């Protein structure tokens, strides 16, 4: 870990000013950033601690939704009764991620900004276009059983590891961003994460020096909400495939997949689980190692829909 200066910001404005320096980074939960700093993958020169900015409340919006402060911890968000009642897919996604300890620390904004778990990204001895643009992608042609099949490029086949983001995508959340000169803007979840294309190191819509201050949920959409996560052990593992589903009367209303792509993979399609899966997986480019993910995605969606039907029947 390279040496860095450490400052604790007292306000959003102060934080933005401190972050305006070259090679500055915010630290909140730190659960992803510090791991990457220890490995030399992230090497900020200035670290700006934003843990004391507030931004840790969940407030109703005028439109009837909820505005989640950027620093609301994953555990607190999952435990909030309004989230559990009206946005169950989000609560379920949150508790399926990481561990109790990590969820107590990880923040809403940090979860969105976490970086891929591609093992070639994690190994600094390997070429990686995300880590060192232009160095190549060692994952292509490597061992890729848990890497991406959708939205990938010839430069990068990494996936985004977040569960929370998949639920936010299906809920049509928006990300509220504060800029260096006090400018605020919002970005829909649909546009927040970028596809790699030729520039896999550019991962989100966040610009240099900007900060996420909140994530806003639209008014509750109702329906039966399911988050089904499939992984290689029962807990504390990243998704192989996950499905965030909103169903109504046994029909798929909205669905997004995790574990398949560099961003939550939302598909706007109607019909049976099979038809929706076909639409979602159109254009998939599996490697020799991860073709099974296509079948798994299909069957996980069917399982999620069956869960929803059961849940509705039980009401």
């Amino acid at each position, binding site marked *: 870990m390279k040496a860095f200066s*450490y400052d604790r910001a007292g306000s959003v404005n102060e934080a933005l000013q401190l972050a305006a320096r070259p090679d500055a980074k915010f630290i909140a939960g730190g659960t992803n950033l510090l791991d990457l700093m220890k490995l030399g993958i992230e090497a900020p020169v200035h670290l700006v601690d934003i843990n004391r900015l507030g931004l840790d409340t969940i407030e109703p919006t005028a439109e009837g939704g909820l505005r989640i402060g950027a620093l609301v911890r994953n*555990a607190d968000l999952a435990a909030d009764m309004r989230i*559990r009642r009206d946005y*169950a897919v989000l609560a379920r996604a949150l508790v399926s991620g990481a561990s109790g300890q*990590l969820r107590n620390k990880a923040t809403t904004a940090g979860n969105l900004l976490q970086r891929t778990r591609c093992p070639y990204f994690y190994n600094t001895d390997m070429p990686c276009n995300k880590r060192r643009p232009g160095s190549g992608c060692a994952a292509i042609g490597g061992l890729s059983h848990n890497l991406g099949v959708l939205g990938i490029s010839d430069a990068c086949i990494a996936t985004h590891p977040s569960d929370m983001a998949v639920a936010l995508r299906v809920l049509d959340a928006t990300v509220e961003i504060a800029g260096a000169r006090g400018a605020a803007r919002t970005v829909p979840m649909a546009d927040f994460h970028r596809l790699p294309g030729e520039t896999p190191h550019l991962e989100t819509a966040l610009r240099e020096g900007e900060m996420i201050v909140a994530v806003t949920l639209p008014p509750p959409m109702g329906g039966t909400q399911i988050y089904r996560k499939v992984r290689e052990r029962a*807990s504390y593992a990243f998704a192989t495939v996950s499905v965030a589903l909103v169903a109504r009367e046994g029909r798929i209303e909205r669905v997004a997949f995790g574990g398949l792509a560099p961003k939550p993979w939302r598909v706007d399609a109607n019909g049976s689980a099979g038809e929706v899966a076909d639409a979602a997986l159109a254009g998939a480019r599996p490697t020799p190692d991860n073709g099974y993910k296509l079948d798994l995605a299909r069957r996980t969606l069917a399982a999620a829909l069956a869960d929803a039907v059961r849940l509705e029947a039980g009401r």
Partner: protein
Amino acid sequence: MSDLFVTLRINGTDHALSLDPRVTLLDALREHLHFTGTKKGCDQGQCGACTVLVNGRRINSCLTLAVMHEGDEIQTIEGLGTPEHLHPMQQAFLERDGYQCGYCTPGQIMSAVAVLDEIERGVPSHVTHDIGAPPPLSDEEVRERMSGNLCRCSAYPNIIAAIRDVSGGAA
């Protein structure tokens, strides 16, 4: 870069330190204050051996910087009980043999204490069937919540038995 002054409040006692900002809470405890009950198993949030309570909540002390914890109440295994006066959870681990090598044990115990509190507070988990309802005190809930603490000796069944002894929870 120069060291920073920080006061860490550990098990109710203030400790004034001058620290390289890179020092994690875990290394501050182990290397600077010699609270070596908190263990380094992976140093990257993947094993739970470093679990401590900060303001009553369990976290991985390896993935947070010591300088970020000025003013926080930090509790470590040393603050839970001593060999002569064990906390009920420590006593239960002893009686149930909820450990073998003992290295992941302080993290398991700190986590176990926090897990019972989280269930009491109604925090849901991945296996909470009705996400809108208070979670039950079941073995299934405890297992899921303890899953951030790996044990390679694989004392898992005995750890769950120890926690059950303390909680009075049903299987």
